[in-house]
């Protein structure tokens, strides 16, 4: 297993956001992390990335406890759209190149190759806010590819983009999985797009269901949480 999360509990501003969360990720897998608003998806990704203090539990990477320094080297976190200053004066190429700032060793791609992998060739000199929402998300994804990380934590990369862009992004994520990267992708999507993932984790403070898309749909039906999750 690439990543093993055991009994993870995290609090924020005095509230318990995650309670005894346990799951593991295989190397070279594409996993969806779904749940309603406030379920703790972003908190979980940030805690795994070493951005939030862990109350209890452990996060292990290839059998070793994931300390912040190791997390920075082996994991890349792509934040939600709302965290990015899209009007910042920066070109696509310069944004992607920022990934190299944190790389102690080169990632899988240089800037040009990363842009090629996400289908943004020829847009390196374009200002970031001149791209469509889907292209902006792919530019951010390209930045994580320049980092040396083997595990990508993507926080709602498909939010607020049109269906064709979402399909294109899911295809890119599938290609990255095929190339051996491990992806954990938070999402609000409960529709057919879930089938693009190998596995689905349903989170609402704790893990409610874990399995293939089909297994999870079945489990959610049994749990009768679908209605409140699927808004």
């Amino acid at each position: 297993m690439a990543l093993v999360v055991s009994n993870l509990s995290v609090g924020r501003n005095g509230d318990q956001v995650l309670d005894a969360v346990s799951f593991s990720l295989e190397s070279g897998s594409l996993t969806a992390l779904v749940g309603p608003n406030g379920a703790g998806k972003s908190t979980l990704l940030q805690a795994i990335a070493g951005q939030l203090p862990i109350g209890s539990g452990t996060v292990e990477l290839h059998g070793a406890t994931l300390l912040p320094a190791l997390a920075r080297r082996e994991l890349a976190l792509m934040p939600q759209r709302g965290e990015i200053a899209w009007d910042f004066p920066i070109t696509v190429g310069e944004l992607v190149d920022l990934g190299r700032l944190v790389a102690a060793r080169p990632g899988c791609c240089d800037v040009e190759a990363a842009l090629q992998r996400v289908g943004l060739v020829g847009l390196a000199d374009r200002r970031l806010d001149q791209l469509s929402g889907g292209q902006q998300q792919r530019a951010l994804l390209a930045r994580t590819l320049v980092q040396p990380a083997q595990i990508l934590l993507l926080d709602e990369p498909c939010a607020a983009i049109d269906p064709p862009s979402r399909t294109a992004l899911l295809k890119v994520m599938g290609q990255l999985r095929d190339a051996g990267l491990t992806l954990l992708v938070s999402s609000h999507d409960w529709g057919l797009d879930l089938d693009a993932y190998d596995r689905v984790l349903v989170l609402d403070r704790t893990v409610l269901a874990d399995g293939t898309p089909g297994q999870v749909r079945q489990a959610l039906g049994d749990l009768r949480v679908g209605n409140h999750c699927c808004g």
Partner: protein
Amino acid sequence: MLWWLQPLILALLVGALCPLSGTLLLVQRRLFQANLISHAVLPGLALAVALRLDPGVGGVVSGVAGALLAEQLSRGDRGSDGGDEAVLNTVLAGFLGLGVLLIPLLHIRVDLEAVLFGDLLAAGASDLVRTLVAFAAVLLLLGLRYRQLVYLGVDPMGAAAAGLPVRRLRLLLTLVTAFTVVSAMSAVGVVLVIALMGAPALLALTGALSLRQALVRSAALGLVISGAGFGLAIQPAINLPPGPLIGVLCMGLLPLAALRRR
């Protein structure tokens, strides 16, 4: 002797310096910090005068202390209810009030009008040195930390996740802002400095392809505005204080910025 040469050089230096710091703050969404620091310099300045120290040093210490106190008391997540804004404004007013109170309490003489609105024509060599030091500090920060500042500006959470020293970067930015504000004190005063930090930056950022380009543009704009303001102010037919005139000219940039952003 060209009596206007030294004040003009100071006006041009401050005119280029303030927009540089202002652009850095604006892209980090921290321009309000310049306003806070500009008001928070007063207690340190008064104490330094009482202790016969360089007023600039006292101002920098006091300005940074005000900014750090406001940051400590703010939670950073109270945007919706304006809680952090209330904290920042209260610290700003508190430091300004403390400074005004210290003047009679310490039995010192401080030309408050010159501190608040500048007195460019009375500026001396020490003001020039102070501005050059501030300029060097800004250029050093840009030279050593440019890409980190870009990362922090475009994606603060990603920057933290990537292990960038976010707190240290913000502290350095605060320090450089305090240097800038204090150095601009004699030229445009601590109240009007915010116009020179904000307006050229706003105009320069529109359509800039990189932060570097925006910095160069904003410095050039500030230099022109400051030089023009000074040149106009000393015309016998006009004969007005340069600081407020520069502030008014900066306001004239805002419609241009609004037009360009459409």
